[in-house]
């Protein structure tokens, strides 16, 4: 069985590093540095290269998880990571509407780089002011509910929730004419 490479992406503070840390069975290779830009308003550290984690599913299928940086200045890292993944999770912090434009821009960027399956993971859904999934879909430009990728709420701090999200993505991969598994 070939290893499945899964990308975890999204804008700053969406929960990418937390997501990978929650589920990885190895100590995550992370590249956190103290944040000096506007990121510092949200959190103290930020990913500057990538997070790498690994997960083995019950079927024996191995997933390699690659978390990307969130800021646009790291677009070269997206270019390295995203075209090589079999599928990816696009995380959106539902409680920070000021980031939705950046999310939409990032999603369009990723879609230009790769046609592989994706799912939208909604984080911070229990926070005050969190938007509803349907509204998020519209802000991301995913207007047609028949053709858009699956949207799932995910608690990036909870391994069970993260696992469900990844299983949904793997199911998406199986649905396509994907011949790896």
């Amino acid at each position, binding site marked *: 069985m070939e290893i499945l490479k899964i990308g975890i992406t999204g804008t700053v503070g969406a929960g990418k590093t937390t997501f990978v840390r929650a589920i990885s069975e190895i100590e995550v290779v992370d590249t956190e540095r103290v944040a000096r830009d506007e990121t510092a308003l949200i959190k103290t550290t930020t990913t500057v290269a990538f997070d790498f984690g690994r997960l083995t599913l019950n079927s024996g299928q191995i997933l390699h998880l690659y978390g990307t940086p969130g800021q646009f*200045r790291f677009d070269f890292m997206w270019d390295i990571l995203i075209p090589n993944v079999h599928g990816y999770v696009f995380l959106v912090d539902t409680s920070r509407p000021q980031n939705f434009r950046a999310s939409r821009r990032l999603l369009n960027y990723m879609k230009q780089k790769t046609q592989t399956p994706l799912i939208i993971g909604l984080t911070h859904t229990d926070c005050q002011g969190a938007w509803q999934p349907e509204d998020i879909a519209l802000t991301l430009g995913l207007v047609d509910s028949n053709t858009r990728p699956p949207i799932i709420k995910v608690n990036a701090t909870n391994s069970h929730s993260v696992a469900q999200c990844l299983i949904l993505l793997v199911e998406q991969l199986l649905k396509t004419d994907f011949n790896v598994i």
Partner: protein
Amino acid sequence: MIQSSVLQDLLQRFVSSTPDIQGAALVSPDGLPISSILSAEMDEERTAAMSAAILSLGERIGQELARGLVERIFVEGEKGYSILISCGTEAVLLVLAGKAVKQGLLFLETKRLVAEIKPLLD
């Protein structure tokens, strides 16, 4: 507040000192530009982000593969060298040099520059 003109002058002097040193940039560890002398076709923001990314990975290798504290990252290309060196906790220095540069001189000059910059950032 750091006098950015002082840093800029230091970098300028460093780049002008040897014809084979072609550029230098000082960036924050999270990949933001602080000060730079780069040729026009190099984007300062991207350069800063790339420098931070590769230094972080290099330091990770030093740590996980038991190479100890990383002194510098050295990228040898067909046309020249890129050196990344940590400038304390606040900055990373990138130096670009041509293939003809004498490596010993390059390392020495870079070390000197780091020693000059460090106290300004603390």
